[in-house]
């Protein structure tokens, strides 16, 4: 029973990371109809930026983390302004190749820094465990869960109660009508990419204490695609919930099924879900 709860907690924590990356993917896809294949690389970049600013430039950890998230967000906006804008209205293939190429450049760029390429790094987060009676939970997992809940609340408030959030939602619903209502659609696209990139960077920071910081940490974003699809591809809460669901399903599969089956689970679930529930598990009534 204790082991079960511990596995469940770590599943929820890793699922929160899947959910955040899926959220960033869906946010960009909804607002700009562009498929981003570089969310994993933005995640990795965010973690390395924080690491570099903290360990090598000597900034305090909190300042370094905030600067890294803002920096990656600005990078997302700049890339939208200069490159990604060209993929607007083009077939998905153009955006897929473009973002994959940009992601490769980011990975190559980080790998070119000798200190970064070597091996695993760790951010000096609390690595200890919290004991509740006989139950021992990793504090890093609790941090991830708490931060995700807080972030989800902030995003919900942003989309519901601010004019900018409303404008972004209007753009996602119908860009043409939004433009006719006087919403600066192009600026909203830039904002969507900035937000999407910043969210990926936050996911990277949250993942850092769980899996450490290394070049291939971005591959976790591949699990965000099943999460996005299970959530219906256009629903922000759906993406987050599906991410947590996948994390838990994966953790339980690791407990119950033979070695290695764990890595299949998200993809098998994705294919099964497409086959059985083509509208996504939320029934396709997703809201922002």
């Amino acid at each position, binding site marked *: 029973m204790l082991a079960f709860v511990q596995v469940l907690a770590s599943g929820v924590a890793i699922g929160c990371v899947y959910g955040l990356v899926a959220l960033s993917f869906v946010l960009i896809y909804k607002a700009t109809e562009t498929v981003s294949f570089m969310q994993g690389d933005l995640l990795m970049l965010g973690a390395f930026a924080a690491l570099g600013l903290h360990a090598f430039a000597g900034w305090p950890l909190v300042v370094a983390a905030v600067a890294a998230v803002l920096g990656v967000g600005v990078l997302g906006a700049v890339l939208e302004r200069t490159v990604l804008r060209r993929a607007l209205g083009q077939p998905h*293939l153009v955006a897929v*190749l473009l973002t994959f190429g940009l992601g490769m*450049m980011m990975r190559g760029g980080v790998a*070119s*820094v000798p200190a970064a390429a070597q091996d695993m790094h760790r951010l000096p987060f609390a690595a200890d465990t919290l004991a509740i009676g006989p139950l021992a939970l990793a504090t890093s997992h609790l941090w991830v869960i708490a931060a995700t809940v807080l972030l989800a609340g902030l995003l919900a408030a942003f989309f519901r109660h601010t004019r900018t959030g409303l404008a972004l939602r209007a753009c996602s619903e119908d860009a043409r009508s939004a433009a006719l209502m006087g919403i600066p659609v192009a600026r909203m696209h830039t904002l969507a990419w900035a937000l999407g990139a910043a969210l990926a960077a936050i996911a990277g920071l949250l993942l850092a204490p769980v899996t450490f910081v290394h070049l291939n940490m971005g591959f976790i974003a591949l699990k965000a695609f099943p999460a996005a*699809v299970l959530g219906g591809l256009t629903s922000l809460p759906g993406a987050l919930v599906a991410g947590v669901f996948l994390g838990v399903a994966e953790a339980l599969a690791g407990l119950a099924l033979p070695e290695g089956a764990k890595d299949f689970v998200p993809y098998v679930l*994705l294919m099964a879900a497409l086959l059985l529930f083509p509208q996504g598990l939320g029934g396709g009534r997703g809201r922002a």
Partner: protein
Amino acid sequence: MSAAPLRGGMPAVRAALPWLAVLLLALAWLGTDYALGKATLVATYAVAGLGVVVVVGQAGQIALGQAALVALGAYAQALLVARGVPAPLALPAAVAAGAIGGALASLPARRLGGLYFGMSTLAFALIVEEALARWESLTHGAAGLAVGAFAFAGWRADSTLAQAAVSVAALALALLACARLLASRHGRAWRAVRDDELAAAACGIDTDAAKMQAFVVGGALSGLAGGLYAHWIGFISPEQFGLVFSFELLMLAFIGGARRIAGAAWGALVIVAIPPLISVLRDRLPGDWARASGLELLLFGAVIVAVVLLRPAGLAGGGQGRER
């Protein structure tokens, strides 16, 4: 635009002329063995890329996991040859493995289309890669499989010339078959679905079936390429057929101009030429930069971005019109 530029006869001869020139130049410049080895690779990549051209360029769908279908073909071939089946007789099994893989990968998304095909083919590819690594009793897992030479009735394709001849013959057959297929009602159905799915359905085309057929044909071509590739490389392991290979094939179709089947060969030429060119460029760079491990990745990414930005319709696309 003309549906099938290679319909046999004179146009095919004219299309082959620039290739003869490229081959002669390469032979003179790079030396016989190297040039023939690269020609083998270009022809094999072109067959695999042809599968992507059918799915992406003709049927207008998206396939993000084509490398897995190449892997299925390669493993089918390697396992059959290891059990004593002559290589040419094993090839149909490789083709079938690729075709079945294409059907399975696209099945979940057949009624949804568009991006969902990308998602289901991606998921299928990741499952296949993982399965090949885990099913150790059959595939030897990550340790990989050694594959013997392409041999038939006492004759072995050991020399680079023989290998190049076999793969170019396979490419020619594949191009011919594709040209016939694209000129048939299947090809017309694919293009109708690509250009306007609603109108295609209104004309009585079974759009779900047309999309599935494109994935099956595309998978078969990639499976064929996998069967040959296994012999040329001589050693296969799951990680050769990862996401990067899938994207190389997408890139190949994109560069070639996904609408024309002859584009696959030009795209294959560019894709095969990029890594050697990057290593040449890297040797010219001063000091520490040349030794940085991420440089090749960085340059390859830059090439992808540059090609997509400069010629969104592909290099052989003539620069006009958008693709779907």
